[in-house]
C-alpha cells in the first residue's frame, strides 16, 4: 500500500507480515477501477518473493512507474496545449481510465488538463461521451459509487465550451 509499516503490514499473497529483513515492493494508489486487472496491486505492499509468483507483476510495475513519473510536478503538462500546470486549482488529473490500448480512453491515462484550456479542446465532447458510457457500463466499479468518474465528468464539463 501507499503506507507500508514494517512489522505491521501484511502481504496479501502469503498473509505474513512484511519485516525489515524482507525484500518488498510497494505500489502507489494508481488504479481506481476495481474491475481493472491491475487493481489487485493498487496501494498495496508485497514481499518481492510473493510478487514473483503473480503473472501481472511486471505489467503492474511498469504502469506504476508511469504513474509515478507522470504525477511529478514537473510533468504536469496539459494534454490540450502542452503548458506546465502550476496552479492546482486549475489542474485536473486523469486516472487510469482504460486498460486496453485500443480503447479510446486509454490515451488519457495519467494525463493532465489545465481547466483554462478546456474551451480549446476539440475532442472534449467525444471524451465526455466516452466517460458517460463508462459510467453506465459494467466495466467500471469504484469503492464509492463511481464518484471519481462523476467528478471527472463534472470538472471537465463545467467550463464553458467556447472562449
Amino acid at each position, binding site marked *: 500500500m501507499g503506507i507500508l509499516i514494517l512489522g505491521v503490514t501484511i502481504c496479501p499473497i502469503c498473509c505474513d507480515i512484511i519485516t*525489515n529483513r524482507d525484500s518488498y515492493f510497494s505500489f502507489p494508489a494508481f488504479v*481506481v477501477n476495481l474491475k481493472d486487472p491491475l487493481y489487485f496491486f*493498487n496501494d498495496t505492499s508485497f514481499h518481492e518473493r510473493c510478487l514473483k509468483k503473480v503473472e501481472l507483476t511486471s505489467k503492474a510495475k511498469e504502469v506504476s512507474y508511469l504513474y509515478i513519473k507522470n504525477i511529478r510536478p514537473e510533468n504536469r503538462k496539459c494534454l490540450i496545449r502542452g503548458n506546465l500546470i502550476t496552479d492546482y486549482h486549475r489542474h485536473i488529473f486523469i486516472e487510469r481510465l482504460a486498460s486496453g490500448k485500443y480503447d479510446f480512453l486509454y490515451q488519457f491515462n495519467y494525463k493532465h488538463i489545465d481547466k483554462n484550456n478546456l474551451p480549446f479542446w476539440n475532442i472534449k465532447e467525444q471524451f465526455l461521451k466516452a466517460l458517460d458510457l463508462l459510467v453506465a457500463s459494467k466495466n467500471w466499479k469504484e469503492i464509492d459509487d463511481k464518484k471519481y468518474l462523476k467528478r471527472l465528468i463534472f470538472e471537465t464539463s463545467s467550463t464553458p465550451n467556447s472562449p
Partner: protein
Amino acid sequence: MKTRTKAAGNEHALVTLANGQRALVSGGPGGIIFQEGEITTLFGHTHPTSDPPSSADASALKSLNQSKQYVLHGGVRTVVRPKN
C-alpha cells in the same frame, strides 16, 4: 497536507511516533515506508491524486488496532474503517 501533497506530488501522513510525539511526514509519490516500531498511530494520509482509499488502507487499521483513519484524495476527505 493537501497543499503539500499537491505541490510536491508526494504522499503525506499524520502519525504518532513511538516517542509519543505527533508528526507530519512526507514520503514519495508511491507512498511512505515506516520502520518497525516507528509509529503507533496513523491518523490519516494523503493520496497524490484522486485515487480513493483502498482495501489496504482499511486492512492497515486492523493491524494498528485503530477504529479509523482519514484519507485525503484529490481534495476529498474519506473516513476509512477496518474491514470486517
